């Protein structure tokens, strides 16, 4: 007997996902953006676990482990990029300043 019904879990996952998305959209600090990304990943992982519990299938938990691994790797790569930028003499963590790929030559 699960503590939450499947719909409740989905609602919770949606809320957590929205929080993560909002974090990405509003924060300019790259470290916080990475954390927000992890929150979004955890939301999806929660959906997998809930679906596994709903249909009594272990595959959902397996997927959760995979998502955890993915999140760890993603965080490592993201932090690596930040460290690398820092090593190249970039003093800020503001994501909006790194817009050299922007179209029409606007800096």
């Amino acid at each position, binding site marked *: 007997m699960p503590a939450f019904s499947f719909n409740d879990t989905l609602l919770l996952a949606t809320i957590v996902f929205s929080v993560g998305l909002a974090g990405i959209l509003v924060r300019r600090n790259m470290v916080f953006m990475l954390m927000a990304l992890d929150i979004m990943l955890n939301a999806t992982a929660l959906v997998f676990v809930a679906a596994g519990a709903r249909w009594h299938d272990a595959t959902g938990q397996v997927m959760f482990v995979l998502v955890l691994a993915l999140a760890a790797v993603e965080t490592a790569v993201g932090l690596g990029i930040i460290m690398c930028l820092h090593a190249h003499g970039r003093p800020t963590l503001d994501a909006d300043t790194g817009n050299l790929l922007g179209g*029409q030559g606007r800096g």
Partner: protein
Amino acid sequence: MGEILLPLLILCPLVASMIISVSAGRVGTCAIGAIACVGVGLSAILGIILSVMLLSGPAAGVLPVVLWRWIHVAGFSADIALTLDRVSMVMVLVVTVVGLLIHVYAVGYMREDPGIARFFSCMTLFVAAMLVLVLASDLLCLFIGWEGVGLCSYLLIGFWYDDPANTAAARKAFYMTRMGDAALLCGLLLLATAAGSLHIGAVLAAVADGQVAPSGVNVAALFILVGALAKSAQVPFQTWLPDAMAGPTPTSALIHAATMVTAGVYLIARLHDLFAMAAPVMALTAVLGTLTLLMAACTAMVQSDLKRILAWSTISQLGYMFLALGCGVWQAALFHLMTHAFFKALLFLTAGAVIMRAGHEQDIFRLGGLRHAMPGLTAAFVVGASALAGLPLVTAGFYSKEMILSGVWHVHFGLTREWTLSGHPLWGMALLGAFLTALYIFRCVFIVFCGKPGTVATGRTSRLMGIPLGCLCFLSLCGGVIEMPDTLPPLHLFTALLDPKTPLSHADEPVWLVLAGALAPLAGLGVARVLWGRAAPVMREIPGQAAITRLARAGWGMDALYDLVFVQPFRLLTWLAHHDILDQAITGTGRMTRAISGRVFRARAGFLDKLAVWGTRARGWAGHLLGRLDNGRVRWYAAWIAGGLCAGLAMAVLS
């Protein structure tokens, strides 16, 4: 046992041919010759073994082998099938044994030639094709071999392709036999539609049962006769054979003795039951044969080229065979075919050796007095010439020619019910032909080997070339005693071999008939001795030789006839194809199409230009708009992705 050996008989030379042609240039001269000789020799041994097996069996026994089914549709079927019966057994022995002797000789003759691999691969393929022709029990299968020998003769006549004359001779041989092939195919198709099969036994049974209308039988026989005439170089197709001398001498020997030209005789002998139902065609065969043998003998009389004399003599002897076939004595035709294979191979191979040692001189008037320089070759040539002339008792040619002559004497052509023709006039002409044969061949002998020396002979005849000549000498002398006229000891081994049930016998044969046949060649020899045999010949050339030679060179007007019948219509056709109305119409249509397509092209180009301009402008605006989106800020990208996802989900849910 026999089922395995019979296909092997054909496979041996075929495999030898493949090995030689594939290994061209990597194997030495001796090895190539050895492979070819082993291939043909194995097949000769197999032929002998199979003959023994066949003869030890029942009297009418045959050895049929069906290899696989070739064609099977409603109303017609054809197999790849071989049959060894007594007729084909004789032919197999002739082809393989004479072929083997010629191959052994050719190893010595062609030793210096750079194209020896090509030569031997063609020669062995030739033998294989001839064996297919001989052993086929289905006429369609026989046709494969028929075309195969045609192809190989083309390849070998044009062997020295550097000289345009040689390739022209090869093409001529190919085209001439091709006309006959077309006729033969017509005959076969007629038979196939009537009988539903081309298996020889089935066809003959259908004809004997009257399933085929008499007119159909006549027409089919006529077509087959035309095919055989073209293959065997009879009137009116005789002109290709003398030109075929362009090839190497062993090739000529093979074409004239064992393979190719004997195919026509064999085909008619095989289908003699069919021809027996077509009396007019039989009479035509006999008349054409007589005509050919006289005309070729007269032509040979005025030739000065040694090999050409022999070529015309072949045509003349084939005329004898066709005469015999026309008179219904096909056993005699086959017997003459066999003895002719022996002495004609001997004559050609000896002539080749003589020409080789006399510095490639072929003109008999420039040769001369070779008796002392090359006694062995002289003896061989005299033996061959005697057999060709048919000198009585001692030569093989006498017995076979005698058999033909007696057969012709007794024949009556029942053209219609009341109107029959006696064979006596034809007999007279054939006798005249025998006289002429002795005359022209001994003219050649006396001019080349007696008289004062012309060219200087060099070198020696190698043993490889000498041994086959010796064997052929023996066969030319003793190959005929297996069948004798009744006046002499009545020995009928050959006819008994071919058909044990109904031996051919003419008990009522007058003695003077044999005597006449024996005296005609002797008279020819005597006249030749008087005219050319003395130290100072009575006459060097036949009076009026130049005019006859010119006529003969043009093939007795036959080339002009071919020009009129075949070449000119073809030219007209090509001219029409160049300038015909349909072509003009098509050209006009093409021109119109081009004009219209030009207009369309211009109109379309203008439209496409406009379209391109509009497109570019629209792309400019769109690019400007999209460029706004692409501002390089990660958060904006994430927002766009989220917005797009929401929009997509909303559409999916709401729709």
